[in-house]
């Protein structure tokens, strides 16, 4: 997983805000995947072509958190989203 890579949302993925979380629905499998507020911000940026690094920059502007933590969490999120087919390499 390289944070400089760019991604697009999967073609069969829907996203809706529910409470404080963003819920992603993978249509083919009918499975739900929920992500927290930070993940939701990442999703909004990723789906319009931002790289993982650019998402980390945006998260650091909004939240008081160190770079290493953001990058670790972002790598974990991106890996999870790719494995579930919710985002694809651009």
């Amino acid at each position, binding site marked *: 997983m390289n944070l400089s890579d760019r991604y697009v949302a999967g073609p*069969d993925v*829907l996203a*809706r*805000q*529910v*409470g*404080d*979380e963003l*819920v992603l*629905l993978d*249509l083919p499998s*009918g499975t*739900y995947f*929920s992500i927290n507020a930070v993940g939701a911000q990442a999703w909004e940026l990723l789906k319009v072509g931002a790289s993982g690094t650019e998402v980390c920059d945006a998260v650091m502007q909004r939240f008081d958190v160190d770079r290493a933590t953001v990058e670790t969490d972002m790598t974990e999120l991106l890996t999870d989203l790719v494995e579930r087919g919710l985002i694809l390499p651009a």
Partner: protein
Amino acid sequence: MTATTVPGLPPLTLQPARPQATQDSQPYHHWGEDPNQPWTLFYRVDEGYLVRFPDVVDFMIDAAGQSIVAWPVPDATPDTVEHFFINQCQPLARSLQGRLTLHGSAVDIGGQVVAFLGHSGQGKSTLAASFAQHGHPFLTDDGVYIDFDSASGQCLVHPGHPSLRLWQDSEQALALTAQPHGSAVDHTPKARILAGEALRHAQAPRPLAAIYLLSDQVPSQPVVTPLGPVQALHAVSAQAFQLDTTDRQRLASHFDQLSRLADRVPCFTLDYARHYEALPGVRQAVTQHLRSLLQTEATLNP
């Protein structure tokens, strides 16, 4: 029986009886644990959807969910056909119109609706009957018909068919054997008990204040546990009627509605002992919990 006026429920057009013809295509979906003995089969056909209850009746639902035509098999009883029409086909047709219907019962507590969702046999109807006998009219026993009011943003529940379907032991334990009954229906031992003075039915749509999911946990005292919105979305989606599970536009609309519901209506699990002596305590726990919930909301949104 009183006619109900739930928006989105198509009327029934009954055709002469005929044997069920073999379909050219395979069903795209079925209900029933054993795929070799399904109790409902779903086919996509040129006119829309064929919903088949083997050896009972075929229903044709048009693609827009606006009409339902039934062809019973020659020895099917009218009440059995009506049962499948009301309890299964109308909610399924309604889903094609982009309207949400959940599998559950609902009662009116002081002008607010609480819905009880759960799988068959978990006590939804018995609970609704018990509330209806004690001053809280039931709106529905099987399909919770939901609409979102565009002006107020409220989630409204419509009164459904004015009857409850109960197992014989519940009917006896609740002393409802003298209440007027609908005709017996094949394929289910449950009795359809008609609403009346002793079993009051709500007459008007009301806002949905809370959803309680019945589980298989049976603690000695009733326990209410909150679910987060995402947990609620998961749980409620499992109880939603949906005829076409592949059409992207319909799935998106369905997801929208479930998300709105989970976002706006608080959802809880309700665990209680499944014996009839426990019902007064369950009623008290739910009414107190609802009162507390509404007080909290009033404080947060004065």
